[in-house]
């Protein structure tokens, strides 16, 4: 009798989640496994008998030892650092400005959020023109804008400049696109803090700066952390924006994700692409897993 009621307790819930467990199991975990297995293949071209991948761990060491791949990883690092820092700074700045209360706040909010509604690929087409590398007489896009403002000396070849940190320029469109999202996150955080706390702080004689520094910002740190994680892993898998701006075989703008496209579709080498994908997955996991552990812990604490 007791067992029967127990089954009636858990079975419906279990059946309800079962479909998604199966679907996620197949389309996420089984495919990850397939990808890892593919990346360890030994491949030989069928007609000319040339070994394209030696197989096993050597596939990974070959890829990691490749100059082009190291260049792509370095580009990814530059892009991620600038992109994350940029979106956090601008997102927070806009959130603070809006939080202070302005007229027509709704308009500003839409203006800042709108870029996020545009797909990366469409934004990329426009930014390809804006970030055009021509200077002087050939200037178009941003460079032309700078010339019109009399700021010729700030003209740059952007992501195509010979500078090793040129990839930082590729972060400009990405920052433009996602700052609004970070702003929305922070704004929601600000709105979640009750006005009583500010009132109390004011009565205690705190200045506006002190209120932000000691009352509001500390309460935003969980939101800042989630924003950091979301933005950080987006930058690692960013493909469409870079592909739209730089084209297929750009060396200056190569990152592991664009390299994967080249390996898969141009070099006809799924094994190398799979190894690349696995490395990328590990990189993203390094960022996301600690975050998941942290949120799991804090959730338990609040519950308990």
């Amino acid at each position, binding site marked *: 009798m007791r067992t029967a009621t127990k089954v009636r307790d858990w079975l419906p819930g279990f059946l309800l989640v079962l479909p998604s467990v199966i679907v996620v199991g197949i389309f996420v975990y089984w495919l990850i496994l397939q990808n890892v297995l593919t990346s360890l293949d030994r491949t030989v071209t069928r*007609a000319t008998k040339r070994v394209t991948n030696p197989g096993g761990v050597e596939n990974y060491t070959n890829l990691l030892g490749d100059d082009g791949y190291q260049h792509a990883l370095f580009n990814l690092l530059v892009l991620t650092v600038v992109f994350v820092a940029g979106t956090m700074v601008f997102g927070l700045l806009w959130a603070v400005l809006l939080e202070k209360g302005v007229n027509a706040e709704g308009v500003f909010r839409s203006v800042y959020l709108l870029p996020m509604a545009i797909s990366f690929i469409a934004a990329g087409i426009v930014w*390809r023109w804006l970030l055009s590398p*021509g200077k002087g007489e050939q200037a178009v896009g941003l460079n032309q804008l700078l010339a019109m403002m009399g700021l010729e000396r700030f003209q740059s070849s952007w992501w*195509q400049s010979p500078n090793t940190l040129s990839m930082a320029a590729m972060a400009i469109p990405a920052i433009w696109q996602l700052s609004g999202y970070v702003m929305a996150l922070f704004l929601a955080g600000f709105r979640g803090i009750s006005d009583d706390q500010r009132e109390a702080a004011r009565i205690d004689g705190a200045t506006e700066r002190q209120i932000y520094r000691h009352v509001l910002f500390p309460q935003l740190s969980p939101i800042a952390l989630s924003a950091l994680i979301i933005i950080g892993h987006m930058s690692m898998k960013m493909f469409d924006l870079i592909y739209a701006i730089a*084209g297929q*075989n*750009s060396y*200056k703008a190569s990152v592991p994700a664009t390299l994967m496209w080249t390996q*898969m579709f141009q070099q006809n080498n799924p094994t190398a692409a799979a190894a690349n994908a696995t490395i990328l997955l590990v990189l993203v996991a390094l960022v996301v897993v600690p975050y998941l552990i942290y949120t799991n812990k804090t959730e338990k604490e609040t519950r308990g």
Partner: protein
Amino acid sequence: MRNRSVATVAIATIAALGLAACGSSNEPTPTPGGDTSSLATTSGGAGGEVGVFTWWAAGSEKKGLDELEKLFKEKYPNDTFVNLAVAGGAGSNAKAKLASDLQNNQPPGSFQGHAGAELLDYIDAEQIEPVNDVIAALGGDKVFPKSLLDRLTVDGNIYSVPSNIHRANVVWANTEVLKNAGINAVPTDIKGWIADMEKVKASGVATPLSVAGTWTQLQLFETVLISDLGVDKYNGLFDGKTAWDSPEVKQAAADYKTLLTYANTASDGDDWPVATDMVIDGKAAYNVMGDWAVAEFAAKGKKEQTDYQYFAVPGQEGVFDFLADSFTLPKGTKNPGGTKDWLMLIGSAEGQKAFNLAKGSIPARTDVPATDFPPYQQSAMEAFKTNDIVSSIAHGAAVSLAWNADMSTAISKFYTTKDDAGLVTDLTAAAKKYLP
């Protein structure tokens, strides 16, 4: 009571998912392939669907394909033509789609591939089958130039039926800009060309030469290679007879570097019309582009000679840098008989005339009367018959897709570093990877 209703919902959800899964599992069952060794055609066609995969989705290319479709329906009423075109510049999107289709053993009836070494990737992966019987039935080397068939032949087998020919080594020049600079004659080598660019620059045009994104730079570099190496040594680059770090290649890299000092600053992702428009607008004197550029001039209402002129890249009088589109017979395709009907149409004189008149290219067959074509195409047809033919790197005739990708990356790298020694090193390394 509440619990039971939850259970009902859960079970209903699972049932619905199960049904959906059944509904989507109608995979096509592979029918045993027909006999592919000898060509047995039925009048009116073999019947069934023929899916034709191309990147001809817009402009003159689409018009050409439409002509072919019309003709196919007329000649093979039993067959059903299915247009599988995927849009996107020079097939970049289409090739990605095709690669995944072939990987998943879902080949189309026939797909478009650049004739030449680009097919090697598919041959290597055993994804396409020889079409010797079709070529023989069409007339073989009596109707196709031998130099063209040689480039389609691997180990004695021919793997595709060419539909049209384009020329890649054409300089398009703005007549007005040249006149202002006092240039009246066509230069005969790269040195002379550079001297002319100096004159153009002195006349006040900041960028005498226009380039666009990476593949157009690769095309420009390939024409410099042809000029500096000559036909035989250039051909030797692709079978290992000419070393990629030979003095001539180094000279070509140095010349290419000099040429770029006269060029505009392009973005890696720019497409070719950006550069061709610079010549049309008089912002540049020269642009090296394939003969499809003529459509861009025509579209902007420009007249030959008075507004623009064209000539072979200096040092290449009598050299035809060719690329061709061709159609294949994928391994394991569902309807090989229908595919062969399509290939017979593509290779027939009638099909080639209809298609090329609309597309603006020239027929691969030599027995199509030139008098039906406009002047530029007539001159190109004459040149194709008489000139030395070399294969284009940028357009898949000379090197495989994978090798092309490595060379493109090297060219893109050079564009920012301007390190010609580094370019030669990278190209040598790429060649070592792919040369047999």
